[in-house]
């Protein structure tokens, strides 16, 4: 299967197979007016199988979201058909307004206008906890 290369935009490569749709949703790519290719279950020498996202438009992506969902992703910035920058992401120390706390007893469920903040409490196991109630964030 062939997907055209893009001239100006962003490629998210080395996505763990099965996570492309979550990234598409959490990066709110459905709001874009350009072409977005979601390529799933591609053969990969390094990973066995992987997903790829290609966004045919120059834009900034929220690296915190990417680092939280899958820190092994490579972000490539494409300009005039050439890769001008490759970024590796890492799990962010804090997630701000990326996800909401699901603990029904948490203050964030009732207080208006409050930032939903999670802090990375265990980098090795990528465990995030709500800043307020300390409930663990389940991906």
């Amino acid at each position, binding site marked *: 299967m062939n997907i055209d290369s893009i001239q100006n935009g962003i490629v998210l490569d080395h996505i763990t197979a099965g996570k492309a749709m979550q990234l598409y949703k959490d990066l709110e790519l459905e709001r874009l007016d350009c072409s977005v290719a979601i390529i799933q279950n591609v053969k990969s020498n390094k990973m066995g199988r992987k997903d790829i996202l290609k966004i045919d438009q120059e834009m900034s992506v929220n690296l915190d979201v990417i680092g939280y969902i899958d820190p092994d992703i490579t972000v490539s910035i494409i300009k005039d058909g050439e890769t001008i920058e490759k970024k590796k992401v890492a799990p962010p120390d804090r997630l701000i307004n990326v996800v909401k706390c699901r603990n029904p*007893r948490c*203050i964030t469920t009732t*207080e208006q206008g409050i930032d939903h903040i999670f802090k990375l409490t*265990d980098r090795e196991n990528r465990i995030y906890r709500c800043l*307020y109630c*300390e409930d*663990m964030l389940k991906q």
Partner: protein
Amino acid sequence: MKHLIDPMDLGVEEINDILDLADDIIAHREKYSTACKGKKLATLFFEPSTRTRLSFEAAMMELGGNVLGFSDANSSSSTKGESVGDTIRIVSYYADIIAMRHPKEGAPMLAAAKALVPIINAGDGGHNHPTQTLTDLMTIRREKGRLSDLTIGFCGDLKFGRTVHSLIKAMSRYENIRFILISPEELQIPDYIRTEVFDKKGISYRQVSSMDDVMPELDILYMTRVQKERFFNEADYIRLKDTYILDCKKLKKAKPDLSILHPLPRVNEISTEVDDDPRACYFTQAHNGKFVRMALIMTMLA
């Protein structure tokens, strides 16, 4: 400005200083009778409480300070839809220090971000209750003369019992503490206490369902109430509420110098016949709560 939101906000040395001060207050009450003269404590209790609120208020009064506040969310502007953040910001203009209890977990953390004066968490849902932890530590230290080399049994609702979570975290910083966790399967300690306290620090602990089997080993028995307000399903509450009842018969197997603690209120998990046993420390513990809060208020206003 220092807040007290989580019991771990205080280092071991800071806790020692507060407990030393509380001991000194007990020994020399008069000396502290004007220590907070001209200062105001706001007690904002969005959830009912007897001991905690009254002990905070008594503590401030014994220090010569004044108290204002509410004891029920229904008598505050939260019934009109006012946010916690706004309430705290406004009360900051009226008081020098705030003690707040709220049913939502994390509310005091939010309050601390908005407050212009120190915030003391007086309990947030099933999450933290640091002044109860200070009370427990003070009671253990006064009863045993130390906070290390102890076998502590926690019994009852270890899942929703915030006092248990906080005390385990606090005691995990002292040497040679053996934890025995006595609960039905449904009310076992949350995973995060297991992984982030016991496993991370390499602390050994035992989970058992029978109180009788472990009774002879215990130096401290920390009893808890199965809290109706933490259950979404009343049937589960009714099924579990009478799982452990401590009575004189059970205590026959216990050490003669066992100390029985309970954060109170109790319902029926400690039979009233135990009250006269010299090992029952829960009323002394409630009394200690006032002195340790006096020491805390003084420390935070200093």
